[in-house]
């Protein structure tokens, strides 16, 4: 085998080897123009090498002319690929220069085929046999065509284009850009000069050599391949770094999930466009979904307790149109026997333009807490009930009095009627009056019993709107005879514009009774004229009202101000010490706080503030 065959076939092989990976990249990934143009350039150089090799082996002038003509095809492709590559890879370059180079090369190609034998020769007259690398190779002999200058002009334009682009890139003063300008730009310039120069010298018959265009272009290709390879290396590095950070992200995600799970917290993301939900494992457990079930809005809908279904769905709808988040409590029905309580918090996620992307949020299982709350509530209500019964016991005398009055009136009226009748003095008008009074007093007795029963009954603890002024008046009425007995006075200072509160009326009554009874007890040692209890209601601000019960006694020992609220702490001989503790827990259940202080001017003052009812009071 000859050296020529070995060298040229190696050039072809190297070019194709360089082209293949970039073609593969181009095919497998989204087609990157740089890789495609490089592969094209490498294939074109291989084509040129094949042309050169065939010309060296040509036997007739017609044959060699034809082969040279065909070789202009890969040359054209090479020019296009080079200009495109530089433009794409550098991201700069004067377009018009590039287009001009390509256009002139295209015109040259047209002339090449229009005027045989080819662009460089007007006529191939013969073959010159040269000794090259130890063997005889053919080169064309003939009349050089003037159009050959057009091809050289095109090469010159490519040269200028690349030089200009490289200089611009170099001036941008970025290390990577500078390297590209130097390696790619520099090699293109040098080797085009070399290739064009050698060809020109061959045409001028200064050099007697076969065409060696493919060698400089092979060098250009290698420079380009080096740069692209460097890019591939960098991409691999980047991918590795991404992988590392992806692992970190995954680890952080796992940590968040763990934290969320230990807090009984389920994370979810809802995509309204696709109507699909991602729900963490904990969430699937809460809702009773299987791990791989696809979850739509309907999947959730079916698990929400019917009583809260509309509420929850409209909150989700609302969050899609408004930037505000939502928070609500609802029940999840997993099966007939298995209901859970959850709190769900959510909000929308939007892009920069404000377009809705998805809803994100957390769901917290609060079943255990709910159960405990319920137990506490029951416990509190039972304690409150016991305490009410105790209060009633304390007031038994007063209540008996309230009942005895109408009973006496009834009995007396009835026996008057009998006596008048016996004496034959019962007129119709008097009888009617007596009967009316009897029925009125029965009513009155009935009311006393009803109010006692209402007070002592174990209520279902349902909240209602309460006018505290009315409650204060009721309590004062209930205690009327106690006050008389104790020769004490109750003064009320009621705010006429007091807003309503929401609560359990009988509980508030109980607290007031407790406080008033305490106040009366505290004043036992005072002379009768000084025993005064003042009950005040006032509006603190738009959200709170205050009720206070103040006595005119000696006040509380300063160090006992808090102690009096403790269980079993009592200053009274018969006291259980439960009253104030329960009163405080009742007020706390109404969202307020019962406190005690020594009032200015003497006496103890117990007061509580509770929130005004949410609905607008009419």
């Amino acid at each position, binding site marked *: 085998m000859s050296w020529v065959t070995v060298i040229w076939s190696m050039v072809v092989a190297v070019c194709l080897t360089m082209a293949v990976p970039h073609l593969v990249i181009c095919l497998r990934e989204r087609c990157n123009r740089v890789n495609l143009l490089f592969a094209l350039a490498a294939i074109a150089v291989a084509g040129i090498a094949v042309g050169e090799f065939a010309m060296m082996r040509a036997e007739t002038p017609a044959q060699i002319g034809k082969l040279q003509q065909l070789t202009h095809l890969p040359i054209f492709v090479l020019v296009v690929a080079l200009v495109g590559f530089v433009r794409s890879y550098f991201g700069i370059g004067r377009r018009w220069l590039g287009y001009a180079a390509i256009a002139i090369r295209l015109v040259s190609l047209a002339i090449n085929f229009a005027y045989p034998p080819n662009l460089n020769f007007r006529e191939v007259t013969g073959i010159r046999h040269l000794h090259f690398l130890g063997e005889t190779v053919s080169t064309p002999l003939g009349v050089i065509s003037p159009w050959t200058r057009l091809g050289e002009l095109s090469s010159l334009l490519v040269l200028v284009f690349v030089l200009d682009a490289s200089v611009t890139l170099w001036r941008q003063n970025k290390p990577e850009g500078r390297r590209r300008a130097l390696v790619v730009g520099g090699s293109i310039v040098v080797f085009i000069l070399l290739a064009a120069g050698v060809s020109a010298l061959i045409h001028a018959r200064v050099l007697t050599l076969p065409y060696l265009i493919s060698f400089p272009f092979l060098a250009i290709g290698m420079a380009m391949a080096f740069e692209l390879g460097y890019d591939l290396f960098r991409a691999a590095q980047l991918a590795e770094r991404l992988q590392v950070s992806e692992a970190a992200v995954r680890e952080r995600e796992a940590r968040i999930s763990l934290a969320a799970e230990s807090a009984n917290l389920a994370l979810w993301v809802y995509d309204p466009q696709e109507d699909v939900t991602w729900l963490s494992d904990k969430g699937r457990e809460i809702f009773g979904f299987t791990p791989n079930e696809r979850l739509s809005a309907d999947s959730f809908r079916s698990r929400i307790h019917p009583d809260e279904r509309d509420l929850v769905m409209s909150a989700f709808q609302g969050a899609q149109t408004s930037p505000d988040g939502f928070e609500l409590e609802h029940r999840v029905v997993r099966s007939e026997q298995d209901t859970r309580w959850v709190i769900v918090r959510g909000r929308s996620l939007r892009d920069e333009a404000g377009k809705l992307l998805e809803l994100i949020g957390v769901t917290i299982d609060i079943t255990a807490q709910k159960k405990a709350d319920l137990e506490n509530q029951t416990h509190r209500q039972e304690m409150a009930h016991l305490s009410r019964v105790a209060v009633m016991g304390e007031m038994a005398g*007063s209540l008996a009095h309230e009942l*005895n*009055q109408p*009973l006496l*009136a009834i009995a*007396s009226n009835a026996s008057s009627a009998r*006596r008048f009748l016996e004496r034959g003095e019962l007129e119709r008008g008097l009888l009617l009056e*007596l009967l009316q009074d009897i029925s009125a007093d029965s009513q009155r007795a009935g009311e006393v019993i009803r109010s006692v029963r209402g007070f002592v009954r174990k209520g279902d603890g349902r909240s209602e709107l309460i006018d505290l002024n009315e409650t204060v008046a009721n309590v004062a009425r209930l205690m009327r005879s106690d006050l*008389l007995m104790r020769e004490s006075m109750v003064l009320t200072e009621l705010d006429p514009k007091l807003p309503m509160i929401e609560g359990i009326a009988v509980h508030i009554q109980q607290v007031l009774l407790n406080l008033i009874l305490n106040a009366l007890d505290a004043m036992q040692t005072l002379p009768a004229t000084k025993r005064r209890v003042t009950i005040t209601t006032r509006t603190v601000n738009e959200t709170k009202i205050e009720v206070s019960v103040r006595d005119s006694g000696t006040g509380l020992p300063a160090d006992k101000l808090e102690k009096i609220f403790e269980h079993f702490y009592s200053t009274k001989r018969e006291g259980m010490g439960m009253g104030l503790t329960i009163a405080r827990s009742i007020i706390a259940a109404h969202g307020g706080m019962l406190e005690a202080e020594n009032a200015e001017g003497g006496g103890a003052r117990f007061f509580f503030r509770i929130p005004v009812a949410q609905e607008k009071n009419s």
Partner: protein
Amino acid sequence: MVDDDPSVLKALGRLLNSAGIAARTFSDGKAFLAYAAANAVPVAVLDICMPEMNGLEVRSRLREQSPQSRIIMITGREDLNGQLSEIKASVETFFTKPFDDTEFLSAIQTHLTARS
């Protein structure tokens, strides 16, 4: 008769009338004492639990004012504790509401007869 509860006062007044006893009713102690200062009061029925001036106070004033008046105390409270026995001991007659009308009337009759 002095009681701050209007319906009790009215009913007891009627009861006395039905037994043929003339009765004058007062809803508070002051008005009664003013009357008693100018008029003879053979028998006074006084309620204990009353605002401003209670029955016991009215009783002691009446005793000073007209020692010959017989006094009957009535009350709706059964829990006067220590006070009750003391009161019971110091007054001629004591009734706890609601009381038997015949006993009440006969007590009044007795006082009226004793006085005359």
